[in-house]
């Protein structure tokens, strides 16, 4: 039994690699800024970050991997009913 039953990737090794944690922790940082600076917009409930911030976190990681995004033409954007700059998916989309 590894790590006495606790998280074996952190107990026996060094957990997740930096690159993937940069995604998680960018969300954490943006969420901290959001809750701290716009506190009066939030009630005592549980919220998820809006999709444009999720897309922003992903965007921040594309250059490092040499990813080149394709850009919708205004006609294409209108055809599928999304803004040219996103968000590109409805909230219920599951990826």
């Amino acid at each position: 039994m590894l790590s006495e039953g606790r998280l074996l990737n952190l107990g026996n090794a060094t957990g997740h690699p930096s690159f993937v944690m940069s995604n998680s922790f960018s969300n954490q940082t943006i969420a901290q800024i959001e809750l701290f600076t716009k506190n009066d917009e939030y009630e005592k409930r549980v919220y998820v970050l809006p999709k444009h911030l999720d897309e922003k976190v992903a965007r921040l990681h594309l250059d490092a991997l040499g990813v080149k995004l394709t850009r919708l033409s205004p006609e294409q954007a209108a055809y599928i009913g999304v803004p040219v700059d996103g968000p590109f998916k409805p909230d219920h989309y599951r990826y």
Partner: protein
Amino acid sequence: MTTTTATTNDFKVADLSLAAFGRKEIELAEHEMPGLMSLRRKYADEQPLRGARVTGSLHMTIQTAVLIETLTSLGAEVRWASCNIFSTQDHAAAAAVVGPDGTPEDPKGVPVYAWKGETLEEYWWCIEQTLVWPDGGPNMILDDGGDATLLVHKGTEYERAGAVPDPAGADSEEFRVILTTLQRTLGEDGQRWTRIGQGIKGVTEETTTGVHRLYEMVENGELLFPAINVNDSVTKSKFDNLYGCRHSLIDGINRATDVMIGGKVAVICGFGDVGKGCAESLRGQGARVIITEIDPICALQAAMQGYEVKTLDEVLETADIFITTTGNKDIITAADMERMKHQAVVGNIGHFDN
């Protein structure tokens, strides 16, 4: 850059002399964390977290040190503990305390209370230290698994009741320790957690398990402050839980056992995001992977991906590696383990240890 200055006695880590090694690894990690580094650049002038007093409870690793220093570079003051007794990397904790500009003799980083191999008593003491600031309390929590949030809520609940339930009646060893901790604090100050709870503007939660606890608290009308569920950002759960586990599962198994994975029969309990990453990880090493699932949708996904889906009972005697990826208890019991082959490997990468 703004950094919080730690007084020399306001921290507890294993060994400050590890700080230089930790700093080297932090610098390597910064290069691999472009999201955090670009947030530092973007908000350098604006300092949106100036005035934020963040209590963090999240695995004190090298990556977390980069997060901590991102928060401080945006203006926040920070106190930190790990959210798991074994997950701290002692060189990361030391480097966070010393900070980029300090020395082990003159630490200038943040107060960290974390070391690898804490007892449960030490663990909850560390969480307490990060919530009790020398001059008041936090106004933000950054949580992983919800333990810091839990302590504030349970403390507030028992202060309102004027009494803490008898620790002897606790249904787990961990809850016994929580109750003992709160019994002591109630004796010291009958309003401590109530005050701390009132001062908190909100919590951001990292994990599936912690988020589940938060939704339960909302349903029971108990949540004391707003919460942001970071776990269900697509760029978190579909990446960290999936690709993170794909990387770190076999890393953990290899470092612990160095047993050959190829050819072995591996059982993954659960085919959520974590289970999907684990299954790919082990299949990539040539293991023959079997999934157990309770959810017909996830079970069908597993089958369509080409995995066998069976019950644990069917495979206990024949499989070589068993990994639980759920947030539930009693997935693999001691009685199950008695039926396994000699030297079967059993590990957990889901949230809980029971």
